[in-house]
């Protein structure tokens, strides 16, 4: 089949995956249809639960900013990130230095 990809180690068929997706979606919809249907819009049932606090009017006061995303991951790798950020100095002469250094290292490896 045209859409089947053989990698030499196995194969990939996108349509089998899509079939799996369709079956999963049907199951999800079936389970959803078994739920209660006495939900009332515009009542207390409709309100956002915000830790028992009043919900801020502006969404800007609610979300998690990008700066806080993956805080633990970054904190755990702090020494790695400190070194990496130091390398990314933003100075043009550093860029040239890394380029020349790479040329020198690869030249030594190739010429030896």
């Amino acid at each position, binding site marked *: *089949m045209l859409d089947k990809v053989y990698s*030499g180690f196995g194969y990939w068929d996108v349509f089998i995956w899509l079939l799996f997706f369709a079956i999963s979606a049907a199951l999800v919809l079936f389970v959803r249809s078994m739920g209660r249907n006495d939900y009332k819009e515009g009542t207390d049932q409709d309100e956002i639960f915000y830790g028992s606090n009043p919900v801020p009017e502006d969404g*800007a006061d609610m979300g*998690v900013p990008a700066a806080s*995303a993956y805080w633990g*991951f970054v904190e755990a790798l702090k020494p790695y990130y400190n070194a*990496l950020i130091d390398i990314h100095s933003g100075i043009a002469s550093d*860029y*040239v230095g890394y380029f020349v250094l790479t040329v020198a290292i690869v030249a030594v490896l190739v010429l030896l």
Partner: protein
Amino acid sequence: MNWQIHLPALVLAVPLLGAFASPVAGLGGRATRNAWMIFISVLTTAVCIMLWQKVIAGGTAVYVMGAEAWNITLPSGLSWPVRIILEVDAFSAFMAVVGSIAALAGAFFSLRFMDRFTGLEKFSALYFLLVTGMLGMQLTGDLFNFFVFLEIASVASFGLIAFWRDRPEAVEASFKYMVISTISAMFILIAVGFFYGRYNAVNIAAVARMLQMGYAEKIALVFLVVSLAMKCGAVPMHMWTPDAYAEAPAGVTCLLVAVSQASLYGLFRVCFSLYGASLGSTVVPWTIIVMGVLSMFIGVTMAVIQKEIKRLMAYHSVSQIGYILMALGVGLLALRDPQAMADYGFTAMKGGIFHIINYTMYKGLLFLTAGAVFYSAGSRNLNELGGLARVMPQTTFMFVIAAAAIAGLPPFNGFVSKLLIYQSTFAVYPLLAVAALVTSVLTLASFVKVFQTAFLGPAKKTYENVTEVPASMLLGMSLLTIVIIALTLFPGWTLSHLVEPAAKALVDQAGYISAVMGGGL
């Protein structure tokens, strides 16, 4: 006479005409300029596709500039070519098609995106010069011409990156890129000089036939490999990438992604077609593989901590280039061993080449969606953005598709190329596949962050008047989305019709040489 024999020249002539006639078209006003930009972009794409069809049907195409006949590569009984020769095999044609599609999408997007600014006839002239440079690098069979086209593309890039010259950051990004790019171009020119001094030729096929590995050839190889790796944004020479990609207008960034692939093309043309089996030791393949792994990991880990949407995506470009370098490095490693090539090398090459088209399409689309967010919301800062999915549903939908594809989520096209890369690199050294998998997980993590912070969440008052971008910008994004969906649904067709012929052409050094050195007839 069959006009299709002139397709290689037309691929360069059409965007070059587009560039030089842009100021004239600009005199006719906004509508004429826009129509000219789209007409040239569509025509360039059409010519590239026709050239690809011709090459797939008839084999490698050569085109000699200035000879008595277009196909006489060795005129007047000479034993080596002296004229400018375009040599287009399936790999070159594949790259040209990929690049021209990205250029077309960028052109559609730029129509309205750039409308708020002045000097647009200069913008479209530089845009088409960049397209010409990119396509020239991919079609030329001549090392010196490769340098010339590289410089055309570089100079046009400098102007386009600094196009918003009222932004100091844009001028600074362009200056930094100019410094590093010019120095690397000088290294390339010195390498070409080495070949001219040693072999009295600069034609790739002619030099490849005569090449004997000595000190000059080794130094030239180092200069070419490292310079071109820098131009495509490989670690540790990638620092210009986030600056340049973030500051260029979004349509230009989409094209810059394709232009970086032209440098990658040059790198592998040098390794496979110029040096080929003469490479000898495994130092160069392993150097490329190590650069690939470093690019993947450092690129993605830097992306995770970014707070500016285009800088985040630019670091992902570094990371994605790493996949391609690693895969084609593995192919290069297996080049002299037919058994290794059959076992894993060719699969790695197919994965790498498939990743080139995937990467260009989804990365181009991601940059366009970032541009759309900037156009509508006026910010690229992820700390400020939020809730945009409510007001920009089409952009959000296309962002999700591109993000899922770059993260390698099944069933998207990125998954298929990554699968081929994982499995083939595992056969060489399992840690390579582990590095690629970890990179993929971190890629998903950082795009989840973008999706959550920019598109999801409650509506923010600052953005309550934000609306979806205009139709022409959506059209540019839709073009790439359609290509991604097609690549997702028909990976088998893509591999057998686009990728495998390109991979076979790349490993067939004898075929590349004989197309020119056989006389061309």
